Every structure is written in C-alpha cells, then in structure tokens.
C-alpha cells in the first residue's frame, strides 16, 4: 500500500505486505529529516532519520528514501505487522537549525 502523506491521511495494508508512507516538503533548506511513529495516547517515537547528504538509509524493517530533486521523503515498512498500526509523521530541520517542522501525519491501519 502507498499514501501521499498530507493528501491521503489514512493508509490500510494487509499484514505481511510492504507499506510506503510519503511526505512532501517545500523548503530547499531542509537538511535533516526524521520519521516518527505515534500510537494512540502516547508520545511520538523515533523510527529513523536521514541527513540531506544521503538519499537512503535502512533500519530494521524500515527504509527511508530522500529525493531532494522533488523534495520528497518516504518511509517503507517491510512485512507490515499489526503492531505497526499508528500515525506516522515526518519532521525536518532547516539551515542546520534546532527547530523542527512537522507534517500532519498518516494513519496506518494493518489488517490481520
């Protein structure tokens, strides 16, 4: 399954399928990006990050892709599990500053 971030705020996938969650950013000065997972009633949890000098980074079952040409960031979750159901959002910093800017998030539902 695939989402278009801000324009499709929900995504449903079958357990075991791969998920792709997208985030578009508009500022060419954006230089550091984080993906967060937030479960209902809890604080956001760090999933994976990437700096602007990279275009891909992999973690356990997750991959982040950064396309600076079109200002697009994606999170790929392999073999999606019911425990992956949550809201996912991206965050960015600009000009190597400390302030973070957040997307509104995509709600992922995993269907058993």
């Amino acid at each position, binding site marked *: 399954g695939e989402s278009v971030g801000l324009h499709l705020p929900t995504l449903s996938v079958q357990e075991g399928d791969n998920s792709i969650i997208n985030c578009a950013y508009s500022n060419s000065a954006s*230089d550091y990006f984080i993906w967060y997972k937030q479960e209902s009633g809890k604080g956001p949890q760090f999933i994976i990050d990437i700096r602007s000098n990279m275009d891909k980074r992999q973690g356990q079952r997750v991959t982040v892709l950064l396309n600076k040409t079109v200002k697009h960031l994606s999170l790929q979750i392999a073999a999606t599990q019911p425990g992956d159901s949550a809201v996912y959002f991206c965050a960015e910093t600009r000009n190597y500053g400390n302030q973070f800017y957040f997307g509104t998030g995509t709600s992922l539902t995993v269907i058993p």
Partner: protein
Amino acid sequence: DVKVTQSSRYLVKRTGEKVFLECVQDMDHENMFWYRQDPGLGLRLIYFSYDVKMKEKGDIPEGYSVSREKKERFSLILESASTNQTSMYLCASSSYLWEGPGELFFGEGSRLTVL
C-alpha cells in the same frame, strides 16, 4: 534508557486556573521544546529553549509562558487556562551534534482538559 518525563499524563482544570506542566530530561540536552498537538493540525511549537534561562517564542506562544531554571527542566505555564487550551502537550529535547541537529526525543504527553 534515555528519557523525557512529563509529570502529569492527564489533567482536568477549570477556566481561569493557573496550570503548570513540568518536563525533565536526563540526556543533558541543551534544547528543550513545548508543542501542542491537536487533531488535523499536527504539532505546533509553543516555546523552546536553547539554554538555561533562555527562551524563544514558537508559533503559538499566546496564553503560555515557560521557565527553564535548570538545564534538565523546562516548565510550561498557562497563566489563566481557557477551554481552547484543551489539548495534548508534548515536551521534547535534543542536542546539537557536529554534523547538525540531533534527534528530537519526546515525552509521553500531557493531556489537558479545561472545563
């Protein structure tokens, strides 16, 4: 295990009451932030601090103030709570690394209801 701890998970206050939300981090981070999170609006920055006794306004500071007397503690104060301040409040902290900003760590959130 690194931690950002928010003192209250749930609070119910009355209009006009003074409200204190406390946040403590144990990572020796320079930067601390207060956000509020509302459905459909994402996270909005209220105030942030880069050092002890320093504070900067974020995007929505009206009706709030902050205090940072010690490096590990950042408090959010609602001088006179109003119903439109009913929200989830999230505290976060970060450090600055040689390659740029570091990861932003969040607390579990404080859900405030103002009646």
